[in-house]
């Protein structure tokens, strides 16, 4: 096991800049998820750690060793591909034992290790099958097995669950997490699915346009998104954003919406009277039937049994409200809603950055 240190790493394809000055330290044994929309550079970064992509500038270390010019085979890493990349002409056992065989490991030991990994993943009865005779879920397990047989310094996962159906995806997600808790191997996991990121990660790295937006634990990102991008990307249903103007009234500070209604915000924030801001409110932080004077008109109601989702119009914008329990209300009704000042995230609309209270 080893740490991974990425210092000022860049990637250019000709004049096109895909990654600009990425810095990231991954601790030994940590499970880090790189998440972002497609084309954000997350897979490129992973492939650079793997050695499949050249590094245009900067430095990547695995443990203490700089690996910029080390061939993938000598980096002591294992990777699970989105396509699984199982060797079609080899059976499951050979697929899993391939790396050990290349390292001239004694045959008994290879059988032992493959057997143990197969048992752990429930593949022991499939060892003689060819990849084409396996289901998608089984292929995914073989790909996992091939990685853990190695006992590498670092596991790399490139969207390993995106080819599975929704149910199996949730199941494998838990399995991968359980596996990591047993093996404690440093893991870097790439996904575009923020739910996967939230559920699996020790720390999440949110990327956008080749730049790291924020690094933090799932809840840090959820509670204190650094900018509008992270705020919108993390959480489902997503955060509601509303443009507003700061309205200072003595000790209280309000955000006045375009329709004139005002939402109270943290008075400690460094904002001027009349300043334009964007406020963000998570759907579950809006209280239905609150005592506040704020009014929203219901457009669509989605009953989920345990909870209810309201899609409402507030200041001419769609606002999603997530409330526990069930409701008698009807679409078209206008209802009072309550929002606590401490639950309102405030952003600078020009830079997109979060506005924090002065220390």
């Amino acid at each position: 096991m080893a740490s991974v240190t990425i210092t000022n790493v860049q990637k250019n394809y000709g004049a096109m800049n895909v990654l600009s000055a990425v810095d990231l330290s991954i601790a030994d044994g940590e499970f880090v998820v790189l998440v972002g929309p497609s084309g954000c550079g997350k897979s490129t970064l992973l492939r650079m750690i793997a050695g499949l992509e050249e590094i245009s500038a900067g430095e990547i270390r695995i443990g203490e060793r700089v690996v910029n010019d080390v061939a993938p085979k000598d980096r002591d890493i294992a990777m699970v591909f989105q396509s699984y990349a199982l060797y079609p002409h080899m059976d499951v056992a050979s697929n899993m034992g391939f790396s050990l065989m290349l390292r001239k490991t004694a045959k008994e030991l290879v059988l032992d290790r493959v057997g143990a990994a197969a048992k752990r993943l429930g593949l022991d009865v499939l060892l003689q099958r060819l990849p084409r005779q396996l289901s998608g879920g089984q292929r995914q397990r073989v790909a996992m097995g091939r990685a853990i047989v190695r006992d590498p310094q670092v596991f790399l996962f490139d969207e390993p669950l995106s080819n599975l159906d929704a149910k199996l995806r949730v199941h494998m997600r838990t399995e991968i997490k359980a596996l990591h808790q047993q093996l404690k191997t440093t893991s870097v996991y790439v996904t575009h699915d923020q739910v996967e990121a939230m559920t699996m990660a020790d720390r999440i790295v949110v990327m956008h346009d080749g730049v790291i937006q924020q690094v933090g634990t799932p809840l840090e990102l959820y509670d204190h998104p650094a900018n509008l991008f992270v705020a919108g990307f993390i959480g489902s249903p997503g955060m509601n954003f509303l443009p507003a103007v700061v309205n200072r009234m003595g000790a209280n500070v309000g955000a006045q919406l375009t329709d004139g209604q005002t939402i109270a915000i943290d008075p400690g924030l460094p904002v001027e009277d009349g300043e334009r801001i964007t406020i963000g409110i998570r759907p579950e932080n809006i209280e239905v039937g609150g005592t506040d004077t704020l009014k929203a008109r219901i457009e669509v109601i989605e009953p989920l049994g345990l909870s209810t989702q309201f899609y409402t119009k507030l200041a001419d914008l769609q606002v999603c409200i997530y409330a526990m329990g069930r409701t008698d209300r009807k679409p078209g009704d206008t209802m009072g809603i309550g929002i606590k000042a401490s639950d309102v995230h405030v952003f600078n609309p020009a830079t997109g950055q979060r506005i924090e209270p002065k220390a």
Partner: protein
Amino acid sequence: MIAGRSRKARILGSIGLYGAVAAYVIFALFPLFWTLKISVTPQSLLYSEGITLWPSSATWENYKTVLQATDFPRYFLNSVIVSVITAVLVTIIASAAGYAMSRFSFRGKTTVAVTLLLTQTFPLVMVIPPIYRIMGELGLTNSLTGLIIIYTAFNIAFATFLMQSFFDGIPKDLEEAAMIDGCSRSQALRRVIIPLTLPGMGATLGFVFTAAWSELLFALMLISSDSQKTFAVGLLTFIGKFAVDWGQMMAASVLALIPACLFFGFLQRYLVTGLTAGAVKG
């Protein structure tokens, strides 16, 4: 199947389809059948019997003569030598070139591809005079080596594109997985990519073999001595000044079909797997 189509319409459709296939097969195979028929017809019956589907008495006499009294076995052996060596050479070179075209980006890649394509656009007749001059200077006229060199050169372009498409069909992930598992690029090529490309190589081998086997133009222009003739040129020796010995010519032709048939019989398994290989991806 289109819903609502009656049973009768479906049966008629099937009859139509199989009828068309049968008609095509008959159309394609009839000349071969005629070759076979003439080859077993005794000389005496050839013109006297009129047009019949099968002669009233069949004979192996033509085959015996061709094998024992003519130079045909020599021609046949020459053809085998030229075709096999050409096929193997082209397959090796085209595999290497196809792999490079599929996997690497290098300066001049487009130029190379366009040039390869361009060589395919000239009518062969146009290039024969210069090639004859060049081969003459090199002392390669009237030699099997000369033929092998020319066939190899002319088949490489198409074979390279063919092999490139086979390599393109193999996901890059597989190679990368192998390289992470501990292979160098050449090991990944040997242990993962080549086993998966065998059907493609089989197809290329078969294609080039048949092309070289039946080539007439260059062989005719470059070969003059009997000892170096390939069978395609050799067949012409059955055309005498005053008469054509149809029986022997057809017997020789049937014999010439055998290697091509054997070759495809052997390759068929690979060709079929080659065509369906994409189905198991992922």
